[in-house]
């Protein structure tokens, strides 16, 4: 009897999982090169208008954070930067970390983006790769050589979102995996302390 309910529950879980996979599978087919390109068109449009808005630094960081959450897969990016430590973290810790990470990253890269004032970013090309899309853009700054800014877009989260940004080949995701890993080490793996510290860092 006990066994029977268990197996029925297992069956239910099984079918739900299959259903979810099917939906995810369909989602995969739904994201096209054009959609990936359109997403990044919006990202660079929003970033450019913030950069050239003439707002104060603090308000710009807030705007960048909203853009990051709107177009980026912040839960996946932040979780990935934790490496193996993510597996032992609770759901609420992961959520709190994602929130702190979003602010930290917006301040850190917001400072860099401020150097873009007066410049613009142009989408160049988009192409499908193994299981995601690559959208290449070029940043044109005044008095500087143009540089390459590449976004990686996926719909594995259920929505079309970017999960990495590469500046001249340097992956933000990989850099932050290294950085957050080092921060965790220096705090002896104490995630709560890291979350708390991240709120003011960047």
């Amino acid at each position, binding site marked *: 009897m006990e066994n029977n309910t268990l197996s029925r529950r297992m069956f239910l879980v099984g079918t739900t999982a299959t259903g979810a996979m099917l939906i995810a599978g369909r989602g995969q087919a739904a994201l096209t090169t054009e959609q990936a390109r359109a997403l990044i068109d919006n990202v660079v449009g929003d970033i450019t208008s913030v950069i050239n808005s003439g707002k104060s630094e603090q308000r710009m960081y807030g705007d960048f954070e909203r853009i990051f959450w709107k177009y980026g897969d912040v839960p996946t990016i932040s979780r990935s930067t934790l490496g193996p430590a993510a597996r032992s973290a609770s759901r609420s810790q992961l959520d709190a970390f994602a929130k702190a990470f979003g602010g930290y990253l917006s301040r850190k890269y917001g400072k*860099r983006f401020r150097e873009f004032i007066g410049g613009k970013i142009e989408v160049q090309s988009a192409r499908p790769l193994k299981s995601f899309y690559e959208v290449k853009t070029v940043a044109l700054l005044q008095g500087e*050589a143009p540089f390459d800014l590449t976004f990686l877009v996926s719909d594995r989260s259920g929505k079309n979102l970017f999960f990495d940004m590469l500046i*001249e*080949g340097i*992956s933000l995701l990989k850099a932050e995996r290294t950085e957050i890993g080092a921060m965790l080490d220096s705090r002896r793996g104490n995630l709560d302390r890291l979350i708390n510290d991240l709120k003011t860092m960047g």
Partner: protein
Amino acid sequence: MSNWLKRVGQLRPLAAVLLGAMALSACARPETSSGIYDPNERFNRKVHAVNKGIDRALLRPTSQVYGFVLPKPVRNGVENFSSNLNMPRIVVNDFLQLNVEDGVHNTFRFLINSTMGIGGLFNPARDFGLDERSSDFGETLYVWGVGEGPYHEMLFLGPGTRRQMVGIYVDIFLNPISYVLPAEYVWVPTGAAVASIIGDRYRYSGTVDAILYESADSYAQARLLYLENRRFELSGRGEDEEPEYYDPYEDLYGE
């Protein structure tokens, strides 16, 4: 004499292989390395600490004075002048890589900037659409199929690989300028190169300071940034092949 001839004879197959590799490489670039290979990390970290000390005590303060004292047009002139003196060396490397297009491109760049640009102080070549296309002997070795080798942080010079270390050494002797320059002027290219390094440190101070002084592990950050950027440049700026992207969903959904 016959001994010498014999040795050349032995070298002939090697030369054939080398030429073959060069011909091949003109069509397709070799695979770029991936991951991080750093067997000398303990030693490298010590060099990194020394380099950081040099930056804090010498390079960073000097660059701040440099940036404060010299107006931007002068700094740009120094940058242009130094970059122009490097052009012949880049051209030599372009041709060693059988990259005729870049070789010709950079030759014209050098001719235009040396004449119309008043000895390279200005960069009119840019207005002709001749942007800088840099190269070095490290890249030449890469094109010839030499592997990257282990990561090395070099004293004074910062991040690099074993291949890059060899490249930097060979490049010192590869610039035709140093062979045609009268002896009393040999200090000029060296001086220009040093000034250009100081100028770069000033120009990218925000980024460099963030990596060296704001990062939780500046050694690991510098290593990653160097390797990723160098491989990106060598692989044709991500145009030719699929770069080694990190897919976070593979960890999450295990695929």
